[in-house]
Structure formats: C-alpha cells, structure tokens
C-alpha cells in the first residue's frame, strides 16, 4: 500500500500507473502510422489497423509484409503468431474477469496489451480489491494506452505523407523491434530462441512468400523449448 496510486480511485490509479510507459508508446505509434503510409496504404487504411488490430508490434510486421506484397495468408499468420503471447495474458486475467458481464469481457479482452497487463497484474498481486474494482483499474491503464496509441498512430499517418524519403524513417521500424526484443530476452531459453531465430532469419531471407520470418521464428521456438527442458 505504499504506492501513491493506491489511495486513488482504481480507474485513476490505473491511468497514473501506466502514464510513464506512455512516453515510450507515443513514438512507437507515430512510426506505425508513418510506416503504414510509406507501405502504400491510403490514409484511412493506414490508421484503421490501430483501432481494429490494436497490437503495435504485429501492426508494424503486417505493414512491412503488406508493403512487400507478401502472401495474404502469411501476413495474417504472422500477425497471429506475434499476438499468440496474449493468450498468456488472457489466462492470467481470466480469474479476475470470471464474474464480469459478457460485454465487459468482450471489450476488456479487446483492449489487452503487454503494458496494461503488466501494471495490472502487479496491482492485483499487491492490493486486495473486488473484481469490479480491479476491472476499473485495468480499464484505466488500458484506456490510457489505447487513447495514446490512437492519437500517436493518427499523428503518424498525417505526418507520414510529408516525410521526405531521404530521412530514411522506415529504419525506425526495425529500431522499435530492437528496443522490444532485448527486454524479452531474460534467460537461457529466450536467449537461445532469439539467437536461433535471428540467424535462421538471415539464412532463410529469400524463402518464397516471405515465409522466412515464420520459419525462423518456429526454429527459434523449437530450439528454446528444447533447451528449457534441461
């Protein structure tokens, strides 16, 4: 109970706890908007993925693949593989959401992100609240992120059409992924998975249909699982 946010109403507390994280989300959203415009999407479609998919890393990967005319099935499969991790969050939130209305379950699910999940699970662990209060806290954090993502990606779409190509802003996309990959590497299994996937991706870069990403990711997962068994 030593967090300052513990004294606030749950919804506000969620918003305050996620606020520092939003600083890093904003440039990520701007880049997603710019990348979508540069991939050749019209403005409405470039923005539409933000409310419809609402999952940054997968949106960037999808935009990259669309820009290269990858096979449609590969594009959708890549998005779903990247977002499969959210099944873990769904399982961890399920006990809290159990007795909520179907409507709350529906939009509460839609708005799950890495960041709002992370702050919520810490709160649930530390403070004893009713499921409804916990849901309010979770929505405060999640809506803070949602609104930030929408504004940032919309700003990116608007800026996108005016950015000169010589600024090479498309390079910001792999830079974002780079900033995301290192926090995800935190033990031996994840290190092996990342190194295997990285080297395989280079080896399989010319596979047809842009399948290289999926094949390399799969090999990384297999290697990581084998090593984590020991």
């Amino acid at each position, binding site marked *: 109970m030593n967090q300052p946010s513990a004294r606030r109403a749950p919804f506000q507390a969620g918003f305050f706890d996620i606020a520092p994280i939003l600083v890093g989300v904003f440039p990520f959203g701007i880049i997603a908007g710019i990348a979508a415009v540069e991939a050749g999407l019209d403005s409405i*479609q470039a923005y539409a993925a933000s409310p419809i998919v609402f999952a940054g890393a997968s949106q960037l990967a999808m935009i*990259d693949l669309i820009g290269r005319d990858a096979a449609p099935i590969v*594009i959708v499969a890549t998005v779903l593989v990247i977002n499969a991790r959210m099944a873990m969050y*769904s*399982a961890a939130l399920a006990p809290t959401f159990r007795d909520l209305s179907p409507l709350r379950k529906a939009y509460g699910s839609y708005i799950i992100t890495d960041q709002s999940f992370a702050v919520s699970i810490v709160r649930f662990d530390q403070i004893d609240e009713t499921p409804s209060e916990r849901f309010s806290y979770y929505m405060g954090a999640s809506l803070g992120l949602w609104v930030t993502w929408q504004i940032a990606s919309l700003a990116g779409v608007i800026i996108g059409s005016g950015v000169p190509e010589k600024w090479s802003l498309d*390079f910001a996309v792999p830079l974002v992924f780079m900033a995301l990959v290192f926090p995800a590497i935190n033990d031996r299994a994840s290190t092996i998975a990342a190194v295997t996937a990285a080297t395989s991706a280079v080896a399989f870069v010319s596979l047809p249909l842009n399948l290289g990403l999926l094949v390399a990711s799969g090999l990384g997962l297999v290697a990581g699982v084998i090593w984590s068994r020991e």
Partner: protein
Amino acid sequence: MTTYSPTLIWILIGLAGLGTWLIRLSFIALLGRVATIPDLAMRILRLIPPAVLAAIVTPSITHASGTFDLGTDRFVAGIIAGVVAWRTKNVLATIGAGMSVLWLLQAMS
C-alpha cells in the same frame, strides 16, 4: 509499396483484428471449461516475443540493400542501436541512437 487492392487490405486488417481479439478473449471466455494452459504451451508462448522479434530485426539490417551486406550504413547504425537497446532497454534512446548514426553516415557518404 504494395500493389494489393484496398479491398484485400481491408480483409487482411479485418482478419488480423478478429484473430487477435479471439486470442485475447480465449481464456477469459473459456474459464470454467479450461482450467490452465499446459506447461509446454506456456513455455512456447513465453518464447514467442524473443524469437519473432529477433527474426524480424536481423534481416532488416543484414539485407538492408536487398542482398546480404554487412557494409551498409543501416547495418552499422543497427548494431550501435542494438547495443543501446541492450544496455538501456529504452525505445526512445534506441530510435534516437539508430537514426542519428544512420543520418550521420548518410551525410558523410
């Protein structure tokens, strides 16, 4: 630049959105019928972010010119940004370092 029609792109965005929502809803909707995620599935799910993100990043710097080439500005900038990402785990610092080095190298050539 894509040559795909707006209709196809709408379908792709729609399927990606629907599939992602179903993943997010999965255990929240199933609770009561499915108790827990099997241990192996849990281990695989945990490894997806490092594997997929690493697989996306590397070709973008090793194949920046279209073929394998470790002499490009993007490879050098990418390696420096990688070190910054590893040490700081900060999105802004990583983008800042990578873009600055790239612009500097492009200005010098």
